[in-house]
């Protein structure tokens, strides 16, 4: 299988931006930075603003709408930005850019991105890829909390309470978003919320106990992952507010 064509190198201004449609219809932002090329989602993750209209100085990308910023080399958020850019790694073939090998949901996941590659490979070895149709229930309150999930594609909604009293409690829609955290915590053997697919969805399922085992074998990665997990929990607590 040949790599999908993105654009000609000559079409991307030096230290500039270009929006392109890659072979197959995927819209991408291509950025040139000091002779290297980076591919990202074409639209700002905040609102549907075209990032090819962003401010760009060759290293930091700034969406003109609300000044969300990212490091062009990694897509990591800076300053006000609340989400990373989804990356589509590019490769050079002759005078063209093509789509290189694409990262898995685990690679870009909220907890595990950027960890040591040997540790990531061990986690990937534990991960089971699953597809579920819209409406499928992943878990219900009271179910044993054994696995964590990393969203690859689709949309998953959460509810608290049961039956008639069930109330919406948020939803996830981005590749790499992670839920079912209780499986990584001690003393939370049961689900407190329900999770259901709103759309046909693909997920990576990882046994929590086995993941902890891998992270215990790489203390640095374990620390990073647990720090991020605390951050996620704190964020959800803060956003819950008093209302």
């Amino acid at each position: 299988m040949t790599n999908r064509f993105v654009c000609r190198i000559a079409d991307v201004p030096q230290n500039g931006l270009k929006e392109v449609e890659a072979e197959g219809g995927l819209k991408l932002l291509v950025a040139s930075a000091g002779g290297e090329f980076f591919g990202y989602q074409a639209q700002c993750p905040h609102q549907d603003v075209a990032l090819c209209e962003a401010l760009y100085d060759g290293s930091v990308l700034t969406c003109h709408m609300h000044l969300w910023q990212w490091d062009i080399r990694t897509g990591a958020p800076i300053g006000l930005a609340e989400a990373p850019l989804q990356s589509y790694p590019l490769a050079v073939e002759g005078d063209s850019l093509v789509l290189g090998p694409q990262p898995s949901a685990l690679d870009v996941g909220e907890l595990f991105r950027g960890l040591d590659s040997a540790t990531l490979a061990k986690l990937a070895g534990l991960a089971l890829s699953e597809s579920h149709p819209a409406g499928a229930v992943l878990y219900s309150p009271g179910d044993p909390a054994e696995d964590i999930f990393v969203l690859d594609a689709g949309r998953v909604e959460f509810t608290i309470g049961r039956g008639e009293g069930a109330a919406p409690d948020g939803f996830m829609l981005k590749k790499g978003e992670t839920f079912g955290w209780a499986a990584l915590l001690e003393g939370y053997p049961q689900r407190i919320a329900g999770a259901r697919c709103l759309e046909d969805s693909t997920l990576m399922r990882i046994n929590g106990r086995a993941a902890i085992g891998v992270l215990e074998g790489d203390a640095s990665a374990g620390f990073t992952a647990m720090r991020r997990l605390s951050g996620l929990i704190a964020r959800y607590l803060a956003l819950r507010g008093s209302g």
Partner: protein
Amino acid sequence: MRIRINARNRGFQFDAAPGEAVLYAGLAAGIDLPYECATGTCGTCKAKLVDGRLHDAWPAAPGRKYVKPEQGEYLMCQCVADGDLTLEVAKFVKPLEPGMGRVAAGAGRLRSPALLVHDVMAFDVELDQPCDFEAGQFMVLAAPGVEGHRAYSMVNYERGARRLRFVAKRKPGGGFSEWLFGAASEGAALRVFGPLGKATFSPELANDLVCIAGGSGIAGMMSILARAVGEGYFDSHRGWLFFGVRKLSDAFYLEELSALRARAPDRLSITIALSDEAVPAEAAGRWPQLAFDQGFVHEVAGRVLKGHYKDIRAYVAGPPPAVDAALRLLLLEGKLTADNIRYDKFS
């Protein structure tokens, strides 16, 4: 009518009165739903209909270009529930911070409308109920029987305000603006909603202050300067205000700006930028408190601010091209961090 909002992080419920826009009902219920202009242009308050029926009060709103109607997407500032409703908002939403002025619908009367220059009018709204707002915030105004509502920044600053001052630029084809410049008369009844907007100033800020305004964007800057001067902010911080207009004859509030500067002459500088003419010789003599320069407002600001970008907080307002050029200056030349640049996109 019961409105349910499914946000990324949680669900919310509140009631809306018949005819009330979903956004306004949610904000008045203390929920910080996403919005920026609150008047149908920016697209920030996009939501997707999950269940129930609603109607769109302004199907031709310019902000509709940001939504996909075939996928059931609407602007919450324009949609009105026809019964119980569930909407999905693909953003993180939290309750409004306590302490900010309460956001509410109210009523008032038009007072003292007067032309400042040929296409800009100043007017007051006398409120039925006093209102607390932050310097830099705006209100949405509507007149019964007049199509459309418009957002205007407050010019004055006071706590428990009974009277709000605004400036409006004449917008051909703008329902409320046409009414204001035409049929409006002293004492006309108005509906108000607010205060809104997050480009606010308060003296707890410890930075030097930069205000860059084009045209009627000066309104919110007057409020910011009024608060800063009134509370002695320039005793310990510097401030620069840049006010861009085409010609000197388009400029207004020069007496008011002179009076503000006279109260902080050592650390506050105010420059009027004229884009379409050389600075007339009489300007400096007539307004000795003010500086004048030729160029677009971002060009003039760039000349004056060179070497002064450290530890500044910038506020920007005006027509979109002026705002974009100012943002470019502050980010790319000034290397300001994004959290030190505040503006509300009205269009």
